[in-house]
């Protein structure tokens, strides 16, 4: 029960902060010269992408740890992280085209990053479908751990396979070898937003984890 309550407080706080980030992004951050108002979606899209990658990476790591130490807590965490990651990937996949239409002139393009994130989404869906299709709790944990690890290994391959295509997606402007080229106020807004999205991720995962704990207590695991 404790996880749910703490998670709820964190999520609630993060939602309030999110409203603050929106106010800052819309009213107190300069408008980008060439893209205009459309660029504002950047402050939602990029943090959502970050939360999705974080979720997928942690599902993979939790899967490896689960197979190593066979602790149910890792399985519950992977399950929670995958569900929350699915939600964030949906945010990313819907905000992306909304920006793409006015700026690129097309909703969708088979660009490396777009393809990668679409497959991330399908990996999450497959992972959740597999979980729901296995009735035995012990088997479910092991199967999903195997899939989680395979998914983690697959990601660099998808990236490689689409890397050679021409890209429309903006190149990294913050996480790149040289100094960030984003103007100061925009960078601050982005970092605030990333922090808030990370907080949201933590809050959601804690609540989901709490639900998994309650479920496992009511129906003990076998196998």
């Amino acid at each position: 029960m404790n996880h749910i309550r703490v998670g709820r407080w964190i999520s609630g706080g993060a939602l309030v902060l999110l409203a603050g980030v929106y106010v800052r992004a819309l009213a107190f951050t300069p408008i980008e010269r060439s893209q205009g108002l459309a660029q504002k979606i950047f402050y939602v899209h990029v943090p959502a992408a970050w939360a999705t990658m974080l979720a997928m990476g942690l599902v993979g790591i939790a899967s490896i740890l689960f197979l190593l130490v066979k602790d149910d807590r890792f399985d519950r965490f992977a399950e929670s992280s995958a569900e929350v990651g699915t939600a964030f990937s949906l945010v990313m996949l819907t905000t992306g085209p909304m920006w793409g239409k006015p700026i690129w002139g097309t909703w969708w393009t088979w660009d490396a990053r777009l393809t990668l994130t679409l497959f991330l989404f399908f990996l999450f869906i497959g992972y959740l479908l597999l979980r729901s299709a296995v009735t035995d709790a012990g088997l479910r944990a092991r199967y999903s751990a195997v899939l989680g690890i395979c998914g983690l290994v697959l990601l660099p391959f998808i990236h490689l396979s689409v890397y050679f295509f021409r890209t429309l997606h903006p190149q990294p402007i913050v996480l790149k070898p040289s100094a960030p080229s984003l103007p100061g106020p925009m960078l601050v807004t982005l970092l605030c937003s990333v922090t808030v999205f990370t907080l949201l991720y933590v809050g959601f995962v804690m609540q989901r984890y709490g639900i998994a704990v309650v479920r496992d207590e009511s129906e003990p695991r076998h196998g």
Partner: protein
Amino acid sequence: MREMLLHAWLVLRKDLVLEWRARTAFLSTLVFTVLVLLVFNFGRDPTAIGPLDLAPSVLWVTFTFAAMLALNRAFQLELENQALDGLLLAPVSRHSIYLGKLGANLAFVVVVQAIALPLFALFFNVDVGRVLGPLVAVMLLATVGFVAVGTLFSVMVIRTRFAELLLPVLLLPFLIPPLIWAVMTTAKLFAGRPLSEVVGWLRLLAAYDIIFVALATVLFPVTVSE
């Protein structure tokens, strides 16, 4: 190591003998594959799109479906009379079982492809003979990748509800990278481009195969231990 390979060979032989004696799975997969080729032929406007433009995609989509069908049946046999439990009780390592199953599935799919390829050349009027060597190399490399991941997943989905539906959903995202490379290579080959242009794709295919065969061999015991 030698013992592991010997046991793998025994599992492989057992599967192939079973397949040879029944032959229904093989024949249905083969007929299905040919029918998919036919469907593709009628699924295009012959006046607008030449057969060669579509040929690489047709070939690989067909092979993907064929592999999927073959993998669905890989562990189906083992469910009857709890044959899988018997196999697990036998004094062979789980890695050998995986490698044996991988080999048997590979043989199954490769034979289907070997029969489908001439038919594909016939239907789509592609001069396959000119690029046969490199084409066979791409087919083998891509199929190893398909089957390596597919064998691992098929043993997982077999004990779930909706196994036939779940396998493609889980497997297709994993088949996309080898599929992209295979289609690219095949298109270059059919267009008569020099081999040096496709070596990069072949290397990626080989890397994919090595990594996923190793990963699946390591992970397979987790999926069958009781």
